[in-house]
């Protein structure tokens, strides 16, 4: 059963990676990152249950992934707002372009 959960996590991570690599818009890139963190949560929960249920480390890893997701979202949106306000773009390719 652990293998099945890890396969699910691997599939979610791959889908998220595809999105994060291929999308141009900052918000869509963030959605890819969220899917990858989702995969981390599933994997951490499954590994906790099957290999080390006596310690809470697996559960804490799920919480850490959730926290990372929230911070990533809040900061991602804040930076996007700041860039958008200054430059009127929300596309990663243009944000890397340093000329104003």
């Amino acid at each position, binding site marked *: 059963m652990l293998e099945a959960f890890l396969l699910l996590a691997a599939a979610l991570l791959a889908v998220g990676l595809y999105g994060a690599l291929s999308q141009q818009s900052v918000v869509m890139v963030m959605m890819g990152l969220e899917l990858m963190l989702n995969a981390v949560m599933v994997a951490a929960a499954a590994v906790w249950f099957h290999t080390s249920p006596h310690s809470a480390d697996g559960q804490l890893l799920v919480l850490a992934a959730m926290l990372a997701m929230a911070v990533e979202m*809040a900061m991602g*949106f804040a930076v996007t707002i700041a860039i958008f306000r200054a430059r009127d773009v929300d596309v990663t390719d243009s944000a890397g372009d340093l000329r104003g």
Partner: protein
Amino acid sequence: MDSFWPALALFAVASAGVLGLYGAAALLSVGEPLVREPYMGGSPVSEHAVSRFHVRWYAVTLLFIAFDMEMVFMYPWVLVVAEKGMHAVGEMFGFLAVLVAAVVYAWREGAFRWT
């Protein structure tokens, strides 16, 4: 250990109720659906509503996303606070005080106002 089968069953019951209403309406209602422009108080509709929409409270969303992560820790904390004693209360409310300080800062900057 919790059983979530009742939750699944209740979801089935609730969905069946909603589908039943739609089914009854399909049997009882009169005529084909009428396709009409959205109600605009009589004004002609000049564009789709589902276009870019600037919310004026975007700063609140950022604060909320950060602050609500605190609940992730507070719910399990509830189970141990009586046993761990005053030290646990101090830890949690110290943590909360830090976040409230950020809320006060945001208030002072006017982040809760529509801009």
